[in-house]
């Protein structure tokens, strides 16, 4: 037994065998009810990839059905806004699918017109050039759903000659450094790449301990395991909500090979970005 800080007494786990082991065994046996609840929960947390207009599930994984040479994933509202303003206005993009998932932190939106505040995960393909696929993911994919997401998107045997670029943001306090966060020039970009990524990164590599989290980490690990060329551009910022300065911190990436030919009109992009960031500016009453 152990006492916690708040005074509650909890059962401390014990690796040595105890007399109560047999009783515990009985308790651990699953009842039909438990099994039913577990199956229902698994069904609810399933990641489904659909064609949004027809609401039918894709039979194969997305990249098996739509092979491409460049796959760009934006995770988080700032990365999504960056792609929306700088890349998506440069051509005609058609939607090829969307991921629907549910977890305690997010329920992906069902509506066809998505506002920046809703959580969604949509895939687009350039109409003129089927070799580029974009993913805009503003929902949180939980740990138990990440592998499902990867399988449904990449498939069980992903193509090796595809370059994957991942864009995401983290709070600057996640950046491990001995300096105080006040002295860091946030927002700033750091990169992390797989062994097969041979190009030059647009910013310095993330220093040790180079730890990344959540879906970006899952995608990068998956690419490393399958010997694919992938790079993660991570923007450390002190404003996690949609913010003009944070989005503009991604700009150095536009000159990289992954974005070749995808960026046409930068002044117009800046205008689009300004509009996106001003639609949702209601003051929080907690902070002045």
């Amino acid at each position, binding site marked *: 037994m152990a006492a916690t800080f708040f005074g509650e007494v909890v059962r401390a786990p014990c690796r040595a065998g105890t007399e109560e082991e047999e009783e515990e065994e009985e308790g651990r046996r699953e009842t039909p009810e438990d099994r039913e609840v577990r199956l229902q929960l698994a069904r609810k947390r399933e990641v489904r990839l659909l064609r949004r207009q027809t609401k039918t599930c894709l039979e194969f994984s997305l990249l098996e059905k739509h092979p491409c040479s460049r796959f760009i994933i934006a995770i988080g509202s700032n990365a999504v806004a960056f792609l929306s303003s700088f890349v998506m206005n440069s051509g005609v993009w058609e939607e090829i699918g969307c991921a629907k998932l549910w977890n305690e932190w997010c329920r992906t939106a069902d509506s066809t017109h998505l506002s920046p505040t809703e959580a969604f995960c949509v895939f687009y393909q350039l109409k003129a050039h089927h070799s580029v696929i974009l993913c805009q993911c503003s929902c949180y994919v939980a740990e138990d759903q990440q592998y499902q997401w990867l399988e449904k998107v990449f498939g069980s045997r992903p193509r090796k000659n595809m370059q994957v670029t991942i864009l995401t943001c983290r709070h600057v306090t996640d950046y491990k450094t001995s300096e105080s966060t006040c002295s860091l020039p946030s927002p700033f970009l750091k990169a992390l790449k797989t062994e097969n990524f041979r190009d030059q990164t647009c910013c310095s590599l993330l220093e040790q301990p180079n730890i990344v989290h959540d879906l970006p980490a899952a995608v990068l690990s998956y690419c490393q395991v399958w010997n694919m060329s992938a790079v993660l551009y991570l923007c450390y910022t002190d404003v996690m909500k949609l913010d003009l300065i944070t989005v503009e911190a991604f700009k150095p990436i536009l000159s990289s090979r992954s974005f070749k030919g995808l960026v046409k009109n930068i002044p117009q992009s800046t205008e689009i970005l300004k509009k996106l960031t001003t639609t949702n500016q*209601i003051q929080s009453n907690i902070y002045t």
Partner: protein
Amino acid sequence: MASRYDRAITVFSPDGHLFQVEYAQEAVKKGSTAVGIRGTNIVVLGVEKKSVAKLQDERTVRKICALDDHVCMAFAVITIFIGLTADARVVINRARVECQSHKLTVEDPVTVEYITRFIATLKQKYTQSNGRRPFGISALIVGFDDDGIPRLYQTDPSGTYHAWKANAIGRSAKTVREFLEKNYTEDAIANDNEAIKLAIRALLEVVQSGGKNIELAIIRRNQPLKMFNAKEIELQVTEIEKEKEEAEKRKSKKST
């Protein structure tokens, strides 16, 4: 690991951090951007005004407030607090009471430095008490003293305070501070109008929708506090944009 030493305010970590105080500084970064400039004959306070919910009364969201003003309104001390709104309200009330108490006791109005020191001491007390958390606010305090010299002070959640020539607090404060470091020159602040323009230009670096989301207040020597209305700010913004265009034309002429 930070997590073992950051749950109680009164515990130092082995490498000397008071994590709760540092986390309180993060709370300040969640507020709007505010900028303060000390000119030769003027002090300027500007702040980003974000839009309020439709049904909310905008007048209750005043950011720049007076801590003290004389009967003749000549020696006002104004301030802006950025961070947790409720904490700001509590500290402002205490500071106002202290201003009056000082006047009653010594028959002189507070100096800007005195009231800043009072606020900083109050904040420091809350970083050393058991069962209390630090105030999650930083303040910019400006005013003129009896000797006619303009002052600008900044305090932060740890209870430190310093005098500044120009400073910014809140969201993206670093960007604004870098802009000020580049553009704060003796010429820029010698002229009152130039000092006002510098404050607005600094805010426009980070305020996303232009002049209509800026609140500005100035005090000139021996004059009462003046709050700028939307039209006056728009006028300044138009002038700034004109100057920018002319500077760019001159640059392109030089290069050709």
